[in-house]
């Protein structure tokens, strides 16, 4: 009896392992810690090792250039010289500032504004000592916020912040921008199947090695870490989510999240828990996800006006609004059965 069981077991296991190895070649997986988060890459193909190493190096370079959490780099230089005139910057920094401006223009700065940094710094959400500043302080800092103030001179590769105390933070766009650069590097190396996940911002190249689309899980905004609310299937797309759950603190029973409303200077309270944008450009997806600031109706309008993006909006009352273009690509995978799916438009 024992022998029979053992034989069956070994047979079963070998069939099992053959089944596994029958698939495609193993991917190169790598992990980096940069941009204040974790970055995963999964790259298939002959040059996968080389391509992922190049992407890692690029991410590290740009992180050093754009960080405001440690000294050095272009953005610190720009911020430290606010009110003092133009400073010379790396061409890559100039390009990302221009991209940021374009995305801010989509909402007229109402949803996304890279000059919101003085507020972010004072509130300190996500740091060890978050605080609720007084209305006077918020008002004063709010006067420094205006993305149109970031003056860019492409010819001399320089930029300036005209008023003392103004600050730029690329946190809302850097991950998307770098995601697009990563896809460019993969393509240059002849890769046709890969994805990179920059702290939750997913950028997928091509499809899975078995030809099926990539399956991207959408986080349940009130669930545990890595608890699904749905799955979206994509090919050659970026999937970026902005949520009020990523960093927040609770004071006097009120929840303050890390996303700011550039119009009020306060953390958002728009009736949305998360917004996921699916678009070809990761930079655009990252920027558009900030329409979480504006609430369901205005947010949807901006996504539709942009035209080349699909979206998943999750409201505080656990309704999931999905744009028509995602029909057949999004499925609810909600183990809690608390969410309702609503086709939008």
């Amino acid at each position: 009896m024992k022998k029979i069981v053992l034989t069956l077991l070994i047979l079963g296991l070998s069939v099992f392992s053959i089944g596994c190895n029958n698939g495609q070649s193993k991917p190169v997986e790598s992990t980096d810690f940069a941009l204040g988060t974790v970055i995963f890459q999964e790259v298939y193909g002959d040059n996968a090792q080389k391509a992922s190493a190049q992407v890692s190096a690029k991410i590290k370079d740009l992180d050093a250039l754009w960080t405001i959490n440690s000294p050095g780099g272009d953005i610190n230089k720009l911020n430290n010289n606010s009110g003092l005139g133009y400073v010379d910057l790396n061409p890559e920094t100039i390009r990302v500032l221009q991209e940021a401006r374009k995305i801010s223009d989509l909402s007229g700065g109402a949803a996304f504004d890279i000059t919101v940094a003085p507020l972010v710094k004072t509130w300190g959400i996500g740091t060890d000592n978050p605080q609720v500043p007084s209305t006077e302080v918020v008002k004063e800092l709010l006067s420094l916020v205006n993305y149109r103030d970031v003056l860019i001179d492409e010819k001399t590769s320089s930029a300036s912040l005209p008023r003392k105390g103004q600050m730029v933070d690329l946190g809302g766009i850097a991950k998307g921008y770098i995601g697009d650069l990563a896809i460019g590097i993969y393509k240059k190396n002849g890769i046709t199947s890969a994805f990179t996940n920059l702290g939750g911002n997913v950028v997928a190249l091509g499809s899975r090695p078995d030809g099926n689309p990539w399956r991207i899980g959408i986080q349940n905004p009130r669930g545990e870490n890595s608890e699904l609310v749905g799955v979206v299937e994509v090919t050659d797309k970026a999937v970026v989510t902005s949520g009020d759950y990523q960093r927040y603190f609770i004071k006097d029973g009120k929840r303050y999240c890390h996303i700011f409303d550039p119009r009020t200077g306060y953390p958002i309270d728009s009736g949305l828990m998360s917004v996921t944008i699916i678009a070809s450009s990761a930079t655009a997806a990252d920027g558009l996800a900030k329409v979480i600031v504006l609430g369901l109706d205005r947010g949807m309008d901006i996504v539709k006006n942009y035209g080349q993006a699909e979206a998943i909006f999750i409201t505080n009352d656990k309704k999931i609004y999905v744009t028509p273009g995602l029909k057949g690509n999004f499925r609810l995978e909600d183990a809690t059965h608390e969410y309702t799916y609503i086709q939008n438009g």
Partner: protein
Amino acid sequence: MNIRTFKTGDIILIVSIAVIAVLFFAWSNYRVAPGAQLKAVITQDGKLIKSINLSALQASESVYINEPLKQVIVAEKGRIRFITSTCPNQTCVKTGWLTKPGDRAVCIPSKVIITIVGDNEQIDTFSY
């Protein structure tokens, strides 16, 4: 220890408890379905520290991280988590137990990641 200082009850007790323990051990071992393998991978700064077969674990197993922060990871049958960490915001500890393929706990300050890998991953990656 002199065997003569034992009374009849002692011997019966020891033998029967030992038999119960062995039977229980065999039973709980048997209950692990073959094939449903759950593996946890612990990495630090992208380098593999330890890989643990959670399905085959009988007793709990601890992994100690000493640099740059002191952290304790505990693995039990079918699950794994950060138990303690000296990092400031404790996100890794608050993540709780990881039980399914794809579950992941991350400590950014120490660059330690625990991931559960398995065969039936429903998704490729997570947008959050």
